[in-house]
């Protein structure tokens, strides 16, 4: 059987529109140095490194090789994993398997992106099949708009429901010093009023119905690094290690046209499996906090149903009832989530790191008050790639 594995350290850079003062290698280095400091380690303590980003966002081939001087990979085992939007969670999962295999004790996981360095949508369009889909289907926004309008029509969901999720994410981000978007103007305005503003303001441009600017995630420059350690050393390295209770993923489609637009089936399947493996029977009750890869607002309604937190069509009720707010039964994205910071290759790893901080009770101004036994993490990417991880306070048996 494999080793038990815990997150024992995490570091991230503050999300920004453009980090003009550093190149990619230097940005990576900032996150690595922060993670090592958090775990009170030096680079010499690290047994292996795994790194990820998306190639065409910076146009660098073999990023694992190019960045070793910044990542700490010089004369260390290192390779790159990458799966699109899920890259950050994929890196975390890879670090987990590095350690679980018994081959390495302390592994550094790095995710990063400098989205300022390219045309993000231009690059994403090239994800679509060059023969069948690239000529006629564009980017991430249109695809997600299709999903949202289908969901709205099936369940009678309104634009206000979507905006309520956006408001939650942006209000939470105000507590997170690392979040990219800090919409200070929202402070002190009642939630109902903010929702009203978002759906009526002319400044809030409609990108592709029903998605307005406020429904989408930003393009961010940032890097993140987490340290995964085996049960042999984890308890010596962290007062409260964040144990990996389970992790799994699903990816069933190669063509966007094949995706099931009714439900997020890959997310549902992965979440179900992860809960089973972690021994979680009632997700809403047993999970203390979520850090979810919600790239746009309606995902915070529909996908909550697919994870099994409520029945189909009841996502809006969960959100309007404040269940997912900071002091609710199931706080979602205390960090502000993907809609407040999206350095794509780092985004999933930030979810893992933020969830680990909640378990370790090191999340500072964004710490949830309730005791967290389990934290639920997702990564979402191209053609409905679904990565999930459950972190726990107790060492898994």
């Amino acid at each position, binding site marked *: 059987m494999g080793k038990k594995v815990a997150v024992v350290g995490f570091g991230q850079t503050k999300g920004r529109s453009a980090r003009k003062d550093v190149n990619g290698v230097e940005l990576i280095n900032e996150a690595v140095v922060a993670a090592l400091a958090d775990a009170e380690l030096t680079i010499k303590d690290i047994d292996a490194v795994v790194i990820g980003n998306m190639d065409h966002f910076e146009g660098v081939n073999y990023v694992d090789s190019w960045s*070793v001087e910044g990542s700490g990979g010089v004369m260390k085992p290192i390779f790159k994993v990458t799966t699109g939007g899920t890259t950050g969670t994929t890196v975390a999962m890879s670090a987990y398997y590095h350690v679980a295999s018994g081959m390495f004790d302390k592994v550094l996981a790095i995710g990063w992106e400098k989205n300022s360095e390219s045309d993000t949508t231009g690059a994403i369009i090239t994800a679509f099949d060059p023969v069948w889909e690239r000529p006629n289907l564009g980017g991430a926004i249109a695809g997600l708009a299709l999903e949202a309008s289908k969901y709205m029509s099936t369940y009678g969901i309104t634009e206000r429901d979507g905006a309520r999720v956006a408001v939650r994410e942006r209000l939470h981000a105000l507590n997170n010093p690392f979040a990219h978007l800090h919409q200070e103007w929202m402070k002190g305005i009642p939630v109902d009023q903010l929702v009203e503003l978002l759906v009526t303001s002319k400044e809030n441009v409609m990108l592709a119905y029903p998605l307005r600017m406020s429904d989408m995630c930003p393009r961010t420059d940032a890097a993140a690094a987490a340290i995964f350690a085996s049960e042999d050393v984890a308890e010596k390295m962290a007062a409260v290690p964040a144990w990996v209770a389970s992790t799994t993923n699903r990816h069933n489609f190669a063509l966007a046209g094949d995706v099931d637009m009714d439900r997020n089936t890959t997310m549902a399947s992965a979440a179900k499996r992860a809960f089973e493996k972690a021994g979680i029977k009632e997700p809403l009750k047993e999970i203390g906090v979520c850090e979810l890869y919600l790239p746009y607002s309606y995902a915070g309604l529909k996908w909550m149903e697919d994870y099994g937190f409520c029945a189909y069509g009841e996502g809006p009720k969960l959100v309007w009832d404040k269940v997912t707010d900071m002091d609710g039964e199931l706080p979602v994205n205390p960090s502000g989530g993907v809609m407040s910071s999206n350095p794509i290759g780092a985004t999933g790893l930030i979810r893992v790191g933020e969830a680990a901080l909640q378990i370790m009770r090191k999340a500072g101004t964004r710490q949830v008050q309730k005791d967290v036994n389990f934290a639920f993490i997702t990564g979402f990417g191209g053609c409905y790639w679904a990565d999930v991880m459950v972190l726990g306070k107790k060492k898994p048996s």
Partner: protein
Amino acid sequence: MERAGIVGVGQTVYERRKEDTFAELVFEASTKALADAGVGIEAIDNIITVSNDFWDGRTISSMAIQDAAGSWDRDISTVEGDGIFGALYGMMRTLSGSFDTTLVVAHVKGSEGNMNMITNSMFDPIYQRHLGPDATSTAALQARVYMEKTGATEKDFAKVSVKNHGNGVKNPFAQIKKKITIKDVMESRKIADPLKLYDCSPISDGAAAIILSTEKGLKRFKKDPVWILGVGHCSDSYNLGYRDLAWPRALDAAAQKAYKMAGIKNPLKDLDVVELYDAYSYMELLWYEGLGLAPRGKGAELIRSGATGMKGELPVNPSGGVLSAHPVLVAGLARLIEATLQVRGEAGTRQIKGAKKALAHGINGPCGQAHGVFVIGA
């Protein structure tokens, strides 16, 4: 620690241009590996694919071949780099306690992209890239440093080419099946001094797959496993001007780790066959040194001695090596497959008699920056 074994292998024939799409190649290699293992996809617990957005000409290239690798309702992930690193990650997942079996599959269609421009994009966009370096021109810089520091000659490099192309003739999967002489190499077209056409590997299309299993998973398969006895991987520094191009210290570190795990003290004696990543002829000599088959600076002496020929003490690249087919990303996995076939005694007319322990090697990054090493045995 638990053991992992290789229970199935499959590869396409490597060719200059294949008409199948790369997803179709992935399906071919995967189904061949499943057939070799005597199972269907239901025996596979999880999958690792190897993809690269530059070679595939699309973002999130990994999403384009998932269905062809059998991903439906299974765990799956993607390594971007040489296939040997895919195999390494596959091994980690196999031993993690989460899965008993792993399919690892790599593909490339070198014919669909532009090798020079794709490898140019490995170089730093600020200080190097617009000067126009690529895999071949920087390999030439490395070959020259190696000659200068060790006294190896262009003729020594040619000997590698002659040996490996001679071996490739007997490999039905090889792309170039052509017996050549030292004179042919020396007189072949100048590419980038000191490298000539026959010092360079070809551009290839193809895919390869292996299936890994824990001991517990073995009952699903019909064949005896070839066990993974030792592994290691390591990266040197990036900047060519600040790396000792004549001494692959990262390979030395990776190999020593694998040898320690496998209990190998004298690799030249203890190993029966080696499959290494000879993207350019001179690399084989450098990798001899990194693998500890020859003392530092003495790689050329090993090829001159004939020890690495088919009838020598330690045959290297009986498959014909990367010089005979260079499906980038696949090539390291192809080395591991050839090593497996040799240990099984299934290598046909290129079989090394009585081969029990074999080494397979792959590289990443410019001038062999990172290395992965597998030692496998019956």
